[in-house]
């Protein structure tokens, strides 16, 4: 009987080592160690033995069972490892093939600059004010201290809808409207579209401008100088200095034009700055007391500064866009560059 048992172990060993799938292995498990297994049938034969033989025989069968179970466990590990490496082989890919991407859109470069300007000024406590594109002469000219016979009022410079209704030529109109409708102090920027009746390589009949206005007690020329400096550095980087030089605007006194160091040559002189090392950025000044008085604001008590910047120009300088026309052509090959 012992020999018989050894044969069983030997054949189990061979069969177990030969299987390669978990399913087959489980079948062998039940064949050798399950309820109706070969080993169990040996156990049933124990009754035919004498009392003395029984314990030794029982022990032998148990050892055989343990041996076979160990073989199965070991093979189970082998098969798992086999299946794992199979998975690895079947899932192997070419890592250099292209990944799945979504279509990517883009904000218009002017909008990008627009947002950046809003964020810079909002972080300094300015609010963003808006007003109509279609304006009356009062808000566009009269309130801004522009005399009746000023050349800017000519048809050749301004788009009119009626005798005194026009497309605003500057967003300063929003400053007037804000001062009309809100108590002081006022600290706003007003970005928006403006229109002038000219269309050539360097002028677009519609363009984008941002104006800033601060009216409060104790606002001085130094504050204006300071805010311009901060803005230019935040917009173009720490290296870019700014300067102001005397100029004339009807609605500010003293008035100034703002220059920044050329963003291309950093002041060395190049074709962009036409050799001067400086680029013109916009106009600025202290709000003319006449403008304040017209709105019923005591100009002895309150002072203010205002300035206006061209957003299209800022976009062109910042992104090094060579031609203004690209901004309104809406060529996707251009637009997608700003994604």
């Amino acid at each position, binding site marked *: 009987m012992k020999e018989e048992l050894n044969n069983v172990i030997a054949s189990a060993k061979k069969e177990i080592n030969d299987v390669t799938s978990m399913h087959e292995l489980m079948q062998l498990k039940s064949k050798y160690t399950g309820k109706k297994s070969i080993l169990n049938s040996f156990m049933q034969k124990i009754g035919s033995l004498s009392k003395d033989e029984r314990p030794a025989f029982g022990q032998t069968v148990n050892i055989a069972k343990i041996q076979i179970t160990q073989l199965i466990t070991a093979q189970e590990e082998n098969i798992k490892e086999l299946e794992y490496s199979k998975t690895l082989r079947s899932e192997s890919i070419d890592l250099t*093939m*292209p990944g*799945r*991407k*979504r*279509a*990517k*859109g*883009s*904000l*218009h470069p*002017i*909008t990008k600059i627009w*947002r950046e300007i809003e964020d810079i000024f909002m972080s300094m*406590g300015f*609010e*963003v*004010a*808006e007003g*109509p*594109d*279609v*304006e*009356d002469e009062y808000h566009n000219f009269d309130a801004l201290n522009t005399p009746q016979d000023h050349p800017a009022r000519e*048809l050749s410079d301004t*788009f*009119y*809808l*009626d005798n005194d*209704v026009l*497309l605003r030529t500057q967003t300063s109109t929003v400053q007037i409207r*804000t001062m009309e409708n*809100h*108590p002081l*102090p*006022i*600290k*706003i920027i007003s970005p928006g*579209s403006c*229109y002038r*009746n000219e*269309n050539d390589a360097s002028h*677009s*009949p*519609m363009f984008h401008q941002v104006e800033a206005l601060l009216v409060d007690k104790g606002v001085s020329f130094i504050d204006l100088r300071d805010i311009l400096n901060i803005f230019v550095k935040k917009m173009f980087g720490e290296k870019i200095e700014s300067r102001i030089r005397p100029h004339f605007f009807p609605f500010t006194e003293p008035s100034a034009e703002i220059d920044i160091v050329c963003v291309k040559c950093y002041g060395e002189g190049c074709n962009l700055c036409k050799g001067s090392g400086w680029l013109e950025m916009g106009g600025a000044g202290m709000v003319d007391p006449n403008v304040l008085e017209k709105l019923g604001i005591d100009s002895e008590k309150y002072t203010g500064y205002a300035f206006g910047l061209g957003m299209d120009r800022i976009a062109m300088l910042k992104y090094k866009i060579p031609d203004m026309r690209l*901004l*309104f*052509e*809406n*060529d*996707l*090959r251009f*637009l*997608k560059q700003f*994604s």
Partner: protein
Amino acid sequence: MKISYNWLKNYIDLKVSPEVLKDRLTFAGIEVEAVEELGKELKQIKIAQVVKCERHPNAEKLSLCQVNDGTETIQVICGATNCKNNIKVAFAGIGTQIQDFKIKKAKLRGELSFGMLCSEKELGISDNHDGIMILPDNAQVGSDLAAYLGIKDTSYDVEITPNRPDLLGMIGVARDLSALMKLPITLPDSKIVEINELIEDHLSLKNEVPQLCTRYIARMIKNVVIKESPEWLKKHLISVGLRPINNIVDVTNYVMMEFGHPLHAFDYSNIQGKKIIIRKAGQNEEFPALDETTYKLEVDDIVIADDKRAVALAGIIGGENSHITTQTKDIVIEAANFLYSSIRKTSGRLKISTDSSYRFERDITDEVAELASRRACDLILEIAGGELLKGKLDSFPSKKDLKIVSVRPSRVKKVLSIDIPSEKIKEYLTALGLIFIEGSKDDLKFKIPYYRKDLTREIDLIEEIIRLNGYNNVPTLTRSQNIMNKPVFYARRKVEDLLINYGFSEVINWNFGDPNDIDKLKINKIDERRDFAKLKNPLGESFSIMRSMLLPSLLKNALYNINHGQKNFRIFELKKVFTRKDEKLATEKLHLSGLLCGELDPVYWKNDSVQLDFYDVKGIIEDILNELKIENYKFQGSDEQFYQPGLGAAATVDGKIIASFGKMDPKIVADYDINLPVFAFDIDLDTIFTRDIFHDTIFTNIPKFPPVLRDISFVISKEFNYSDIVETIRKSGKNSISKIVLFDEFAGKNIKEGFHSLTFSLILSSDTKTLTDEYINNILKKVNKVLKNSYNAEMR
């Protein structure tokens, strides 16, 4: 730290209620963290009389009592040995809440008990737990204990900021309140009577560490009688959370709470060699403290010692070997001060925090020691008797002159932006105890009292000035302008960003328009978009109006890009459109329009290419409306003529059209020389932005019970609308269906002409229970039945 309303009233006639005082304290810079109404617990306790007291029939140590609480006679079982007939007791009836314990009906050894007779400890009145509290015969049966004991007080748990050690006692707080409330303050007057015997004959003092112990005063009283403190003293201590112990210890605690300066009392008989030595501890010196713990000291610790051993850990805790006991006769009162950093280091290392260390760690003042010492002796003589020996032992190694600080009224104005005249400044600062010495117009010199060590610079005085003037008593400059509509501002950016993520590129066109475009798009003759805002001097006919629509410009952009080789693109423009009829200026409205052309996704090697269709545009519109938190929008066919018939839709809210979208009519697109399928949308942002859509997200509870997912599939006639079908399913689901997702639509093989098969995933969930299979099956049965009855749907 706790302070008490009644106690404060000893020094200052507070003319305000405890409620108002809370605010006054907070605005004085003494933040009140909690307010406790004392006597609340004792109010529930009734004075009762034991009318009968006999032994419990089944327990030797218990008595079975009948007590009368003024209204009825109640049976109570009591375990105290001092319970007997006719005494007046503190009775807690059923339902009384004492500390964390609620009195309930109980059965003890077969007898019922309907309440409890309380000990003083149980009531939090004292540590006395030797039997129940027995009240004098004149106590009124039926009245509450709080009223009888006169316990009616409010205590405040206050936070004292580290710069104000002078506020660590009642007097400091009263002094500040007196300045703030312009009320006079009365300080205790200690008139001590000494006998002729000299203290030097009984005790000597040696300060070995003058850098660490900056003041040490010892006074000695002979022949005191140790006993319980009088009621007023106990009440005050309880009101600030201290437990009365005996008259001597209670006085030292009382004076500590009064002056903010801790004291210690030694039993003279335990001071060996008649010597008090202040020295550094020896390395590993063992010190048995009052808290029954022996601490191992280090050389940086300061101890108060006698000839042989340490009797106190300086400023932190007294020694077990020298404390006051019932046998004590002669006592030594210590009033000292130690270097705060040393106390902090020792108490931190040994993890001992006491009322004493709490104060010494905060750099209190050397000078107060003398006041506290005198006050303690005065009180002890009054309540414990005894004789005070003549003189004191006093080590005061580094006495300092009072500081002088100047303040400039001009500087006050500069810092605070308010005008406070010199006279007012003097008034404020003198009220705080500062002494005005002299002053020119813009330079006022003040001598700083010793208890305000924190006032060393001009700016410190300015802080006091604004504090007394009132922080909120200054004008507010309105800086918030509210000019911009922030929600709209950010909503606009959100929509732009959403479209960018959908692959759209933003375009910007001139706002000039061509009136012919409106004809080309077959806009109705009476449509307001024909009320053109016309220019008098345009650049040309094709730029002669201000645009009333954005789509024509987008079609031109599309053509430009198609001509430059683009076939798959998405563009949008978010700009004002203009109309003008009778108004002086123009009507300007914000619109958002977009065009889509080509494939759904970028070319990808694993996917087949899919052309855009109507539902892609619809999904974008739905996403935008959801992003803007518009609820209850509905879809219907669009009246716009530029959409291909049957493929143009409008979104409405409350019957108002807010958007249109769909496939553009190929004929119209061809008019713009485009021969590709083009999808478009136009959203009236102006109208949307006037709706109340900008509310913050409000958190809703995350479901506690897991959702269950079930699929249903049925064949249904195509004549029924999807949206109606979904609504029917939702309604028949008895609120249990939280989500309905269509995941398959199929027509053709095996399905009748004019019918299709729809498969939905239903997500069922409940806020209150786990849904059982039975419950879910019932819901699904109901859904099936309703679908069958309403649409003749055939379940699969």
